[in-house]
């Protein structure tokens, strides 16, 4: 067992888990943060996306011990009290999901995108989100949701 302190959504958790556990496993099983989900387990689908120091990471590929000392944000950490994050709001307004399994991953990738580019073009959005898969095929509405947050929207 390894002991580590993880800082998730601004809170520190002292945890003990076996060293081979992924960050995804620890978030879901130890902390009950189920917004990150395993879709593929090999870094392809993006449904396990979390932010580590503001950068998108596939939490299925990161060992939990590697995350110690970093700032981890999951979808549960986006809303401010009861007020949804503007990306969450946009996904609702534009019907950007169906089953919703992929949605937290898309939302966190969008948060990271907008943190670095305030006005991405449609092409940049498609490119940036190409590491997130949506089997229900909600892509056109996801694009609209993200475009609505881009300053370049005309």
């Amino acid at each position, binding site marked *: 067992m390894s002991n580590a302190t993880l800082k998730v959504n601004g809170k520190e958790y002292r945890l003990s888990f076996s060293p081979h556990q992924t960050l995804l496993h620890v978030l879901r099983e130890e902390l009950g943060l189920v917004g990150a989900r395993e*879709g593929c*387990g090999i870094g*392809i689908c993006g*449904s396990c996306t979390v932010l580590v120091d503001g950068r998108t990471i596939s939490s299925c590929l990161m060992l939990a011990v590697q995350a110690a000392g970093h700032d981890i944000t999951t979808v*549960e950490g986006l809303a401010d009290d009861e007020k949804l994050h503007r990306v969450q709001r946009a996904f609702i307004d534009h019907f950007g999901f169906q089953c*919703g399994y992929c949605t937290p991953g898309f939302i966190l990738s969008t948060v990271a995108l907008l943190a670095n580019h305030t006005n991405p073009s449609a092409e940049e959005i498609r490119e940036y989100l*190409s*590491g997130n*898969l949506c089997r229900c*095929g909600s892509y056109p509405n996801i694009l609209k949701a993200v475009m609505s947050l881009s300053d370049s929207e005309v």
Partner: protein
Amino acid sequence: MAKSVHMLDSIARVTGTVPYTANLKLPQMLYAKVLRSWLPHARIVHIDTSRAEQMPGVVAVLTAADLNQPGGPTTFYGVQHKDQPIVATDRVRYIGEPVAIIAAESTDIAEAALHEIEVEYKELPAVYDEIQAMQPCAPVLHGDYPDNCFRHARLRHGDIEVGFAAADEIIEEMYFSPTANHVTLEPHVTAAQWQDGKLTIWSATQAPSLVQQVIAELFNLEPEAVRVMVAPLGGGYGGKGHIRLEPMVAALAWKVNGRPVKLTLTRAETFVTVNKHAAAIHIKSGVKRDGTLTARQVTIHWNGGAYADVSPGLVGSGMLRSIGPYRIPAVQVDSYGVYTNLPPAAAFRGAMASQGTWAYESHSDSIAHRLGIEPLAFRLQNLLVDGDAFATGETLHDIHFVECLEAVASGIGWNTPLQKNSGVLKRGRGLAVMMKSTIPNSTSQCRLLLDDDGQVTLFTSTVEMGQGAHTALAQIAAEALGVPVATMNVVGPDTAQNLFDTSTNASRSTFMMGNAIINAATLLKQKLIEAAVPLLEHPPEELSVRNGVVCVTEKPELCFSLTDILRRNQLTSVDALGEFQTRVAGLDPETGQGVSTPHWHQGAGACEVEIDTETGKVAILRYWSAAFAGRVVNPELARLQNDGNVIYGIGPALLEEVIFDNGQIANPNLSDYNIPAFPDIPHNLNSVSLEGESGEFHGIGEMTLPPVAPAIANAIFDALGIRIYDLPITAEKVLRALQNE
């Protein structure tokens, strides 16, 4: 009433709190892992589980030796043929078949224990191809079916010889549609608990009522002793359409006796659990020089895998869905369901229609090309219209193939000039139309309950799997009751409190459950009117329910709110049950003549593609789809279904194939098995949902999917003059076809 209401649980969907079964954690819960066969066909000589059982943390190991004991489950199940063991008995029939299942304190322990089970096999010859499996010398999977054919569905309409003799041209082709995987992002997951002779099952399934029924039968229990609960699914697409993990997890829970146990499949395991039917389709048509069809003969072999599962019924549906929506005086179809040493196959969104449409709509363009007729004109000349008889002999009603096709053709600008050639990039256009039957005999039941605080709760066994069914059904209930949607709650499947529903399959829910709800609402309104009679002092026939009040129809100012009516009658709630059933005459097993479906699903698609002739890469520049929706409940959710279908359909059209190497899947992961991502989606994607005068709901969960592959293939033919017969249309296939030119 069509209104784009947001999904009822939208906030949960964007905050990550939807209670998927994958998230389920129960007190004292154990974790399961499955030991699977590594051989495609073998006798099991010996299994030794003793070392695994002694490992600390292992609670139970279940093998076939545990089955058929007094008080426990019997061995075999199957919706139509009881050919599938809960875990393998003396024989394994595909790589990945469950041989043993372990319950342990953690997944890691269960996983480690798998390696401690010893299985001795004696390998048998295997067969994988659906046509070879029916050859006389092929290895036999199930003794009862010496030719490996578990169902042969036949349709005989008109005189086929006369039809072909009357033709000026005969066009004969062979198409192939391979195995694909549903890839629900939430994998298959089931938990079960056995306590005091009763089972509780939590499962990501589209068919709670069916699971209850099959499990009760397997354990020889009354249905009430089996409780099935279904949370919203992270995708279904048919992959969770019938009984799946439940027998094996329930049997393990029975052996554990007390603590709940949960099995979550890995991505690789989902690929050996259920797939789309591969199909080999031979299609031959006779046609007059003026474009009139005279005869069509279709022979399909469906690869059912090692167990029949739901395939016997589906092979019959596939027979109907392989002909095409055309007026043809003589039709003959032979639809064979075949056992092979591959994982079982089941419905896959656009079920048994995608394969047939791939063949008959590619074939339509081949015919049109042979005759020198423009492809849209050829279709319009032959499409079925209201009042025509289909090849089953049944008269068609509410038929809109022409409108669907015209809508998509005008959407992409079919008649505007196309700049075909610009150096290495070549452009073309194609279109396709499809016809799909729905479940002939099915039943939906529901309960509507009005509380004295004005909330209305719909209890329904319809599964919410992302299609927005609960939202659309709440809208239907609200409208039928004359209350705002905001007062609606929906309680999803739990067999302990909700009534029967056949399943959430075949795009049936809006139609079937929607009508059950309307019936329940009518009854509930009657009850409210009766309760209002003494208050309003008017007879019931002079009262009506609207906008949350019961009023005197002629003097609407004389009214009581629904909550007032309850309070003044000292009622805390009032409820009503609703039911809707479809029963059709069915088809003659020898001739396929009769009535096959309560109504027809109809859809079309058209696209413009650009092919890079140096790489073979196909880009879809624009795509229009149309579905006949009858009556649209929620336009935004309807559009999500139509567009989602097209995107889902791009997978098997251009990218997806489960590749087998001697029965072993070579690409059971999302790195080697690619599903559509942002770069694969046409920038210009549009859809229309057509409405009809009858106002009858038609499901739209699949209608725009089957046309995708043939529309693309037809566009490629238009651009390059090459015909692709095998899906998926990879860059490599296009390039090879170009080189063979």
